[in-house]
């Protein structure tokens, strides 16, 4: 199964990358952890996000779309980064996550829906085939880049 590991924002991540020792140490520790994850075949993807000051929100209400510029105040609800992991169970994901070089934060693990997780009465076989084709195209593009 695939899980998404969601790292929440804090004061530091919202300030953007600062050339401090703390930032450098953090990058080094994260790099080491990522290498372990890759070696174990766990890590599929992992990225960090720019501060919310560079982001936008789009509000959907009926036919109306409203664009709101960042930054956004509720730092703890913002996402600062994520991983996509391939694991055998949620427990395996928890064990890996516990080894991550974090301090003073809470990190969330969420299982990713695969096509086989969606019941046939919601997504018809024809619809599921289209989704699979779409994902294959995306994977092909990713392999090329």
């Amino acid at each position, binding site marked *: 199964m*695939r*899980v*998404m590991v969601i790292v929440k924002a804090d004061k530091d991540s919202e300030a953007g990358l600062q050339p401090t020792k703390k930032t450098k140490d953090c990058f080094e520790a994260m790099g080491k952890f990522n290498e372990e994850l890759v070696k174990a075949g766990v890590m599929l*993807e992992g*990225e960090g*996000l720019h501060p919310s000051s560079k982001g936008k929100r789009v509000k959907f209400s009926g036919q109306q779309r409203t664009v709101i510029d960042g930054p956004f105040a509720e730092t703890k*609800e913002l*996402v600062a980064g*994520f991983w996509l992991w391939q694991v055998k169970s*949620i427990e395996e*994901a*928890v064990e890996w*996550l*516990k080894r*991550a070089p*974090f*301090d*003073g*934060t*809470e*990190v*969330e*693990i*969420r*299982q*990713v*829906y695969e096509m086989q*997780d*969606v*019941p046939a009465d*919601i*997504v018809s076989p024809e*619809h599921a085939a*289209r*989704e699979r084709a*779409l994902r294959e*195209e*995306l994977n092909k*593009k*990713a392999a090329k880049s």
Partner: protein
Amino acid sequence: MRFMMLVKHGEIQAPPPKEFLDAMTKLGEEAEKSGTMVASGGLFPIAKGARVRFSPGKVTLVTGPFPESKK
């Protein structure tokens, strides 16, 4: 440059309507053709997930239920 779109929603109690999923697939196909979409996916409710808390010198597994469903 790449952007991440985060879709927030209250924890889903019932499966989404077919029309919604059809519309999402159509949008996905368009976005793929135009070269805009890199990847997309949906997440199970938090009840199937976990949270891990990192406090100084201590790492704990936080068990649900987690009430803040809009986040």
